[in-house]
């Protein structure tokens, strides 16, 4: 397998400009002769589908939700980064680039990250033009706030609902094209297979989640923008429906899967309350602008109410360990620090797995009204879930799985190792390295959808003859459809005793314990024994009532869990083989005396891209070396 990143030559500031000029164009009259499929309708998919249709391509867009407006990008709370420097505090494209490369612990591609920083400013302009109601100051200009891992205020926000507003902007642009007839939207459709002919992506097979119809859609190019695979962990901040099925099908058809072990564990989520828990809820990182994180200094104080622990007996451990970034230390570092104090027996709450996020000082300094204006909806959400009032008692928080930096390998054009298959947003691997900074996911999703793919897909399509799509009678199409219907039949045929959720929960326990915040060789090896056992049990003892010719949510979940049971194994394998600590990937064997991640740049300054070798075969690990010419490799320090 060849991993050609196709990074353009020239100085980093010129690469994207030069590349845009070098890319071939498709004649406007020819654009309508090309059909592009976009799977997923979140920030990346929605933006791509709308923008490609505006250019004149024939677009079909698919989502599993009942409407494209519900993609999980909608749940992002805090904000979106851009290097506007509206506040004159020293921001620039170069600084956003630098912060993102460093924040990713030097495991992302410099050229991709620089492009991301460059287009960040266009995104804000685009969204304001669409009517996204970003927060404003009294003078009518845009407001900003700070986020982790940065010392400038570059985060644009719309109350605590930034993701919602950006997504609705993209959704409205998409619906406009639907109304104009240039995009055909398929809601409640799930992609189950990629059609590949002579090594080139030519279409997909979907299942209509209302009628059960299995159908193929043929095109000149396919874009996957289906988000991350973090639900492999079962408990995560993802929506319940988020899944890895589309990227996993593509992986099995030849797309390399890069850095699968790079998962983000977000430090500020509401702690688990019991076995019934179906998902975890994030409390925006923006809260760390004003909230102070602490645990008791003494273990014996952990059972006491927070108000009875005097100031001197509190350990504001982030402020203590990282004085210059304090509570705004990056996510991987803040999560690990929370784990360390809990491992030390100083965690709070019934389970001992929690730390305080305290607004007392901010309320005294700014007044409860100001805090309400900034975070009111988050405080309300917290109270609804926990029945505790965060204006009076500190929030209890704990880290939870939130994002996957890994994903399908893509080159600079966002094309996977299968020609014609492009991967956008969280579903690809390229921009965040081993740790994503806050407010960068929205930026990347929209960058890929609005400002990268519209250019790079043209370069690909210009090389294909218009009207050369395969026909529905092609044997590859029939085979792909047959594969999907056989798989549905196979799931029903098991007719065992246990529910899909049961197996998902079992997998999640293994993943969280052995491939979560702390990983080590023995644990990962154990996980690699346990996961195949769960998978075997799944294929022997699963039960799905009802039929496939109807709405069947058990069937939908079973198909996704079957894939998680394979993805989880690859995540553990990748974590085992990456014998270093970097960003969110913390191998306990590689840490400094102070418990910080210890990178091994000599042996692991690369992307690991896995090639599927067939059912039951061990996948092969390929390497794309990373070079750092503009941001010099250094130990990350936030002290």
């Amino acid at each position, binding site marked *: 397998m060849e991993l050609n990143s196709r990074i353009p030559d020239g100085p980093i500031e010129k690469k994207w400009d030069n590349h845009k000029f070098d890319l071939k164009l498709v004649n406007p009259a020819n654009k309508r002769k090309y059909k592009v499929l976009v799977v997923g309708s979140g920030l990346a998919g929605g933006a791509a589908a*709308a923008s490609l249709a*505006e250019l004149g391509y024939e677009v079909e867009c698919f989502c599993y939700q*009942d*409407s494209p*407006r*519900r993609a*999980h990008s*909608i*749940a992002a709370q805090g904000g979106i980064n851009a290097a*506007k420097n*509206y506040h004159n505090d020293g921001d620039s494209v170069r600084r956003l680039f630098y912060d993102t490369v460093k924040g990713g612990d030097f495991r992302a591609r410099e050229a991709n990250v620089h492009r991301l920083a460059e287009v960040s400013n266009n995104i*804000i*302009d*685009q*969204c*304001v*033009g*669409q*009517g996204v*109601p970003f927060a*404003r100051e009294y*003078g*009518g*200009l*845009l407001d900003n706030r700070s986020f982790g891992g940065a010392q400038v205020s570059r985060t644009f926000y*719309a*109350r605590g*609902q930034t993701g*919602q*507003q950006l997504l*609705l902007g993209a959704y*409205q*642009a998409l*619906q*406009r094209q*639907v*109304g104009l007839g240039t995009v055909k*939207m398929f809601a409640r459709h799930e992609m189950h297979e990629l059609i590949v002919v002579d090594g080139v992506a030519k279409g997909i097979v979907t299942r209509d989640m*209302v009628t059960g119809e299995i159908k193929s859609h043929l095109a000149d190019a396919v874009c996957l923008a289906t988000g991350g695979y973090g639900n492999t962990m079962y408990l995560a901040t993802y*929506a*319940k*429906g988020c899944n890895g099925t589309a990227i996993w099908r593509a992986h099995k058809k030849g797309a390399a899967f890069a850095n699968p072990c790079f998962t983000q564990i977000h430090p500020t989520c509401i702690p688990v*309350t*019991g076995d*019934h*828990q*179906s*998902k975890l*809820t*994030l409390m925006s990182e923006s809260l760390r602008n004003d909230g102070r994180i602490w645990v008791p200094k003494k273990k014996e104080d952990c059972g006491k109410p927070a108000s009875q622990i005097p100031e001197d007996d509190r350990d504001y451990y982030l402020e203590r360990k990282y004085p210059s970034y304090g509570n705004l230390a990056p996510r991987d570092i803040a999560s690990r620090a929370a784990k360390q104090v809990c491992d030390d027996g100083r965690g709070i709450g019934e389970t001992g797995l929690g730390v305080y996020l305290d607004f007392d000082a901010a309320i005294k300094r700014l007044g409860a009204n100001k805090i309400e204006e900034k975070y009111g909806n988050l405080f*309300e*959400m917290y109270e*609804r879930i926990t*029945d505790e009032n965060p204006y009076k008692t500190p929030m209890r928080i704990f880290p939870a799985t939130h994002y996957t930096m890994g994903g399908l390998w893509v080159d600079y054009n966002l094309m996977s190792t299968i020609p014609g298959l492009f991967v956008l947003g969280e579903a690809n691997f390229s921009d965040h390295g081993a740790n994503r900074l806050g407010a960068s996911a929205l930026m990347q999703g929209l960058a890929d959808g609005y400002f990268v793919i519209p250019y790079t897909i043209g370069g690909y399509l210009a090389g294909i003859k218009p009207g050369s799509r395969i026909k529905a009678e092609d044997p590859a199409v029939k085979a792909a459809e047959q594969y999907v219907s056989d798989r549905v039949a196979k799931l029903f045929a098991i007719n065992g*005793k246990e*529910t899909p959720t049961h197996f998902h929960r079992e997998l999640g326990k293994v993943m969280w314990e052995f491939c979560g915040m702390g990983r080590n060789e023995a644990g990962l090896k154990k996980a690699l024994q346990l996961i195949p056992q769960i998978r075997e049990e799944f294929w022997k003892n699963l*039960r799905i*009532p009802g039929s496939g010719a109807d*709405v069947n*949510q058990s069937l939908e979940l079973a198909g996704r869990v079957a894939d998680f049971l394979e993805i989880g194994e690859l995540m553990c394998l990748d974590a085992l083989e990456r014998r270093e600590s970097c960003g969110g990937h913390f191998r306990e064997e590689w840490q400094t005396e102070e418990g910080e991640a210890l990178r091994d740049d000599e042996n692991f300054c690369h992307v690991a891209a896995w090639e599927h070798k067939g059912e039951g075969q061990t996948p092969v690990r390929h390497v794309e070396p990373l070079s750092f010419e503009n941001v010099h490799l250094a130990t990350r320090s936030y002290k």
Partner: protein
Amino acid sequence: MAKHFNLTLHVWRQKNAKCDGKFVEYPAENISPDMSFLEMLDVVNEGLIRKGEEPIAFDHDCREGICGTCGMVVNGRPHGPKERTTTCQLHMRSFKDGDNITLEPWRAEAFPVLKDLMVDRGAFDRIIAAGGFISAPTGSPQDANALPIPKENADLAMDAAACIGCAACVAACPNASAMLFVSAKISQLALLPQGQPERYLRVRDMIAQMDAEEFGTCTNHGECETACPKGIKMENIARMNRDFIKASLTYRPATIGGGAG
């Protein structure tokens, strides 16, 4: 640990849009007050699957109250008894041991039941496609700070934009009117300078689509505002009506060949 308790559910079961539905009774046992309402249904469904029965179908996704996917009528109230709370954010501490809970889908002509508590809200997407946008093709806008927007307007636009499209307003309305939903989008865009060029075209097109979908008309019951989990206000309906009257009075057909060159 808080004490667990038992409930009886009366759930609307309907195989698909073509079949008739009926209420079926299910026990919900050993329920923790810390569970969300949907987690309680998960527990009931796990039990049904193990018995080989079809689980209760209901739409849900983010379970954080923001995606707008979930929603059912709980004891006669869309999203249940707690104000400004979606079904997924409702917690079982709002109920007590021995309670009877009746669960129904959103009921409106425009929302056919797909199965059990799941309905088709495609009508909302079609209303947005008819005009609920600003035509700003990718790549064309000016600098984001070029047009200052008074904070008051930006905040009011954000209030309206907070709508999650769950359709509880329609379910709550005795006329099954969608005017709270439609007016929220019209207000948001009408309050912003970027929304002005298409302001009156938008209100006409969206209302025409709303009528075509057979939603009812507003007769000022105010049930929508009470049911809305995001606090969308009826003043949006007033704003929409004002714009609609103005749009209707000043309507002129497009100039034929106006832009030809």
